[in-house]
């Protein structure tokens, strides 16, 4: 016994923290007042160094005691010889503390990972996919990851779902990176996903929004193209599908079933605006269409591109204005104002056909004609000085200002159910 006590003291002296190796917590059920008295007398036995978590008062309530390792046997013998019932609540207090510490460290590491992720840099596909997993782990009650299907080259297409529950709540769809060379859009998608997750519960607007609507964010809408911009050609725009001849890829924003093969799209497979052999020929486009249709409650569809600093509404396949044009233009103008309020970045607003060019087979024309009234397309910074190769130090300012525009649209959508 004396040797054991000496060892405990030695251990305590070596480590700066107090350790509880082998200490046990017993839960004692006293049957009568006599047993209570015995337990109360134990409290006065200072040499036992008993730590009463629940003090003996009356037989109705359990008595919990943490007993230092060296005295565990002695106390148990005493209880048994007095026929006092007990059970072991904690077999080894230190083990519990160690587990707690480990969990704390794991959580801190996770938080550091999501917080230390450099949102002001462009990342490879694998890095973004890895980061998405850490976001889901960090915010399991808000964020989940849905695989909506594979790309031409077999990569998964992951949509992040932001939801606080409910049963198929109305949703808002946002996609970035459908044209792979528009790197600021994927980077904005990552920043935005993080923004939504971290602001929920802290910012009243996003909290109110997510209490009645879900947000679906497809950060890499063209993963094959994105991988190719890293490995081979920074200026790659299309998918990587092999159709006919020697040229690869289809323009995924000319491939939707909306005025397909009309103006502004090429039937030449070598063209950067090749519409493809038929509408929805691209599995990437097909995956999104299938998801949207199966969901059935998407109320807003927002596609994010770069560059030109534009906020556009349908149509691109015709210069005729959609029935809801006035309302959409108004929402767009207010959203552009909100965006501009941050850093003074000017956006032009209007229908695709008049603002930039006639362009058939586009995503927001499809979504609008499908019945998703609040369909918008962003063209982010800049206006041509850097163009597609926007310096990484502009990612966060771009994402921050775009967020104001997106929030305006999303709040409007929530306030105008249909």
């Amino acid at each position: 016994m004396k040797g054991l006590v000496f060892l405990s003291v030695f251990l305590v002296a070596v480590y700066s923290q107090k350790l509880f190796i082998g200490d046990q917590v017993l839960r004692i059920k006293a049957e009568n007042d006599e047993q209570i008295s015995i337990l109360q007398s134990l409290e006065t036995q200072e040499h036992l160094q008993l730590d009463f978590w629940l003090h003996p008062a009356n037989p109705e309530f359990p008595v919990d005691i943490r007993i230092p390792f060296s005295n565990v046997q002695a106390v148990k013998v005493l209880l048994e010889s007095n026929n006092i019932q007990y059970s072991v609540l904690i077999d080894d207090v230190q083990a519990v503390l160690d587990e707690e510490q480990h969990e704390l460290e794991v959580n801190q590491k996770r938080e550091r990972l999501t917080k230390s992720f450099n949102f002001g840099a462009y990342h490879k596909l694998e890095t973004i996919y890895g980061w998405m997993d850490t976001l889901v782990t960090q915010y399991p009650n808000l964020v989940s990851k849905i695989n909506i299907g594979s790309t031409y080259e077999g990569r998964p297409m992951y949509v992040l779902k932001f939801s606080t529950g409910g049963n198929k709540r109305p949703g808002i769809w946002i996609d970035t990176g459908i044209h792979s060379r528009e790197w600021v859009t994927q980077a904005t998608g990552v920043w935005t996903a993080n923004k939504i997750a971290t602001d929920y519960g802290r910012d009243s607007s996003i909290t109110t929004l997510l209490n009645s609507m879900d947000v679906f964010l497809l950060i890499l809408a063209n993963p094959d193209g994105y991988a190719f911009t890293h490995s081979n050609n920074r200026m790659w725009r299309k998918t990587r599908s092999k159709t006919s001849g020697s040229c690869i890829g289809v323009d995924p924003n000319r491939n939707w079933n909306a005025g397909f093969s009309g103006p502004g799209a090429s039937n030449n497979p070598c063209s950067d605006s090749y519409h493809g052999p038929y509408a929805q020929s691209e599995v990437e486009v097909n995956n999104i269409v299938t998801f949207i249709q199966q969901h059935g409650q998407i109320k807003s569809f927002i596609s994010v591109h770069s560059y030109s600093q534009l906020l556009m509404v349908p149509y691109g396949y015709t210069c005729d204005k959609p029935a809801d044009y006035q309302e959409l233009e108004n929402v767009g103008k207010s959203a552009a104002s909100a965006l501009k309020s941050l850093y003074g970045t000017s956006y032009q607003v209007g229908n695709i056909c008049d603002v930039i060019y006639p362009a058939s087979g586009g995503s927001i024309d499809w979504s609008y004609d499908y019945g998703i009234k609040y369909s918008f397309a962003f063209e982010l910074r800049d206006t041509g000085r850097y163009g597609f190769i926007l310096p990484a130090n502009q990612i966060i300012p771009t994402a921050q200002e775009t967020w104001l525009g997106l929030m305006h649209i999303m709040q409007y959508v929530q306030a105008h159910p249909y």
Partner: protein
Amino acid sequence: QPTWVDPAFPMKELNTSHYPATRAAKVAEHYLNYHHGSPSKWFMVHAIERATSEDIPEVGTKYHIQFSVQEQATKKIVENCIAEILFRQTEGQSTPEVNCTCDDLLKIKTSDADHALYHHIKHQPHLVTGTDIPDSQGNIPKEMEPLWYLGGIGASFIMWQQSNESTLYNMAHIHNVKQLNSENDLLAFDYVVLLHEMVSQVKKKKNHSSICPSII
């Protein structure tokens, strides 16, 4: 406030957010950069205040644009630019005819910086070269910035020449730049640049040479 030109032919007021105005203004931007740009002076259209177009029978379409530009190095905004851009009706491509003046353009003085650059390059032991400007992440080393600007100016000449009502050009990337040997006081560079044409989404690789005289 500039007085608006009295058109000889029916004039159409253009929406300043729509592409006919923005494409014409971009042509004026290329023209300005070619004529007034330098390794420390690069203009981008800032805002279009007013735009009109005249259809001139048998000739083409003439645009009048009132706009402001922003100089990219100093961030100074130059208001009251007026440009007249004539796109001729021709068989193939023809260079748009441009007249463009901005009130305070000449107030942006970069001659000191340009002279300093000239002397710096002139006294380098080796011929200057550069590749991949900007890199994939959009980075441009500080010492390469003047060469990026210079490349942009040279490219502006080509973009101006190649423009019509169905194009919108920007310089996307400089593949490489090589300083050429020159026996006289001039500095000469050979560039391979990538141009991005917005409407067709075509990327065009172009070669151009820029001459940097000792007096600008």
